[in-house]
């Protein structure tokens, strides 16, 4: 019998509805794969086999009754940032020890309403702060990809490293993820998977542990463009519990796949050609341009002059919002408490013990830039620069550009415990150089695998779209996917 975990969501959907396979069999195949692989990969921090089998059984019932939902019987992994009723939800932080929410996030509830099956919770950088998944309290995740002729462990990227690794290693059919500065697109790029951060407001943020509220968005990581389109359709919704969620109909994203690119104008921003960028990233970008041209798109050079300021502005705005959001972890209402001689001592000891190094660093930066006397110089200046970054994109779109093509990351996956990156936090921050502009402007961004580098590791291209025009991104990414093919790691685990 074929390995059921190799089926894409679209393929599994077909076999389930044709009653060639049962949802329970599919779920069991994934549970066995997780049991065998997770000790090596560390993608899951909690597996929920009983719940998964119960949900799969219910799916089989609904399929038999002709009442199947859009994701009926499809086994998914859920990033630990999403609140799941009665199940481990800790943002992979020590400070949320033992937290089992009494409510369900809107995005996961949407998935369950469509019949999806939960396999468990996925590893991530603590509070989604990181680009390598190494800041997790539950330890690093290993990338299913290794360089040719090498046994060295690589990072899967971050912060949605567990999501990306689980999808690439066939430990779930698809995964939820979140993206504040690149946390969906960079790990997707490092693992040869497809990830989309939709427009700010497309998915409800309710029940997602907050990092930087004006930047956070949920999105899927999937094996291919079609699966990402299927998942996003189910995840997106307007929600009374998140006033920043938009009341716009959710299109059938899958229907945009296969549509012609004729008449589309693709912008190539010159500012994304950065110093020290490896030649093969430039070559990949040129290859992507050629593919889109062949498919009938018109290629235009554009300028986004404030690009270089996006990352420094992000490292003011995101820590500022984080310092405010993370003030709630004080040892009173949930999670860890370390006793002290008085209440302030209790707060300080709890937060010292509960937060990891990177989280403390960002809270400190955020507290400093918001403190009296520095607000105007840092936070206000950064928010003004943010207006200029968004204006750059608006000018390009107003001039007739339909989507923008850029590299997704400045490199392929790097090693776990890389000394050069560990020595300087700013070097790690530079991982997000191509992705962070999209969050600052609230736009949709998709990363799609486009090739392998000289080490045999996957590299991706990024497509940036107009607000709420995810359809153009799916359509264009599908063309790249058709030309580039799919990329699967050789199994070592």
């Amino acid at each position: 019998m074929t390995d059921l975990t190799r089926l894409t969501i679209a393929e599994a959907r077909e076999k389930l509805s044709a009653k060639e396979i049962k949802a329970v069999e599919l779920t069991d195949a994934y549970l066995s794969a997780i049991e065998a692989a997770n000790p090596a990969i560390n993608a899951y921090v909690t597996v929920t086999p009983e719940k998964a089998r119960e949900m799969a059984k219910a799916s089989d019932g609904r399929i038999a009754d002709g009442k199947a939902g859009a994701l009926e019987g499809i086994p998914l992994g859920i990033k630990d940032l999403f609140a799941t009723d009665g199940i481990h939800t800790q943002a992979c932080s020590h400070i949320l020890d033992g937290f089992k929410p009494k409510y369900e996030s809107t995005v996961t509830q949407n998935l369950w309403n469509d019949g999806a099956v939960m396999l468990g919770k996925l590893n991530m950088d603590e509070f989604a702060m990181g680009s390598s998944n190494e800041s997790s309290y539950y330890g690093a995740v290993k990338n299913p990809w290794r360089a040719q002729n090498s046994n060295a462990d690589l990072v899967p990227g971050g912060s949605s490293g567990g999501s990306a690794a689980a999808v690439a290693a066939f430990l779930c059919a698809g995964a939820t993820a979140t993206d504040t500065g690149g946390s969906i697109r960079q790990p997707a790029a490092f693992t040869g998977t497809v990830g989309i951060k939709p427009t700010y407001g497309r998915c409800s943020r309710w029940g997602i542990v907050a990092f930087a509220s004006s930047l956070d968005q949920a999105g899927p990581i999937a094996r291919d463009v079609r699966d990402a389109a299927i998942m996003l359709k189910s995840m997106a919704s307007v929600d009374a519990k998140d006033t920043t969620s938009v009341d716009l109909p959710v299109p059938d994203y899958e229907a945009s796949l296969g549509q012609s690119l004729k008449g589309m104008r693709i912008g190539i921003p010159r500012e994304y050609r950065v110093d020290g960028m490896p030649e093969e990233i430039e070559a990949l970008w040129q290859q992507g341009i050629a593919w889109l041209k062949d498919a009938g798109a018109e290629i235009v050079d554009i300028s986004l002059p404030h690009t270089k300021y996006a990352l420094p502005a992000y490292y003011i705005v995101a820590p500022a919002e984080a310092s405010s959001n993370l003030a709630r972890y004080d040892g009173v209402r949930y999670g860890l408490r370390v006793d002290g001689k008085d209440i302030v001592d209790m707060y300080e000891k709890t937060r010292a013990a509960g937060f990891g190094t990177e989280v403390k660093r960002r809270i400190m930066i955020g507290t400093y830039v918001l403190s009296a006397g520095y607000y105007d110089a840092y936070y206000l200046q950064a928010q003004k620069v943010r207006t200029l970054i968004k204006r750059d994109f608006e000018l390009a779109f107003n001039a007739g550009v339909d989507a923008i093509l850029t590299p997704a990351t400045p490199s392929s996956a790097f090693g776990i415990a890389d000394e050069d990156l560990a020595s300087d936090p700013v070097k790690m921050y530079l991982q997000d150089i191509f992705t962070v502009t999209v969050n600052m402007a609230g736009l949709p961004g998709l990363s799609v695998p486009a090739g392998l580098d000289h080490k045999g590791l996957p590299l991706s291209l990024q497509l940036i779209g107009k607000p709420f025009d995810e359809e153009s991104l799916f359509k264009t990414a599908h063309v790249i996917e058709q030309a580039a093919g799919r990329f699967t790691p050789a199994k070592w685990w």
Partner: protein
Amino acid sequence: MSVDLATVKRVARLARIAVSEEEANRMTGELNGILGFVEQLSEVNVEGVEPMTSVTPMEMRKRQDVVNDGNKADAVVANAPATDRNFFQVPKVVE
């Protein structure tokens, strides 16, 4: 702009994070590295530019000011480290 050890300790106090002397020293270097990196923002001409308050140009929806949820005291305190009859317990605040 850069921070010194005393500023780092003051900020840690504001953020309610206990730091050791060694941690404060290490953080001083790291924070100065990050502040040095963001310094380049000061070269951007922002004259007449409004600070961003919302990425989506949409009016915020408002709901009726009515109670639509509640009576969940057990659920609210279920995850607390210390409770007593649906109250959160904290160390004594008032002498």
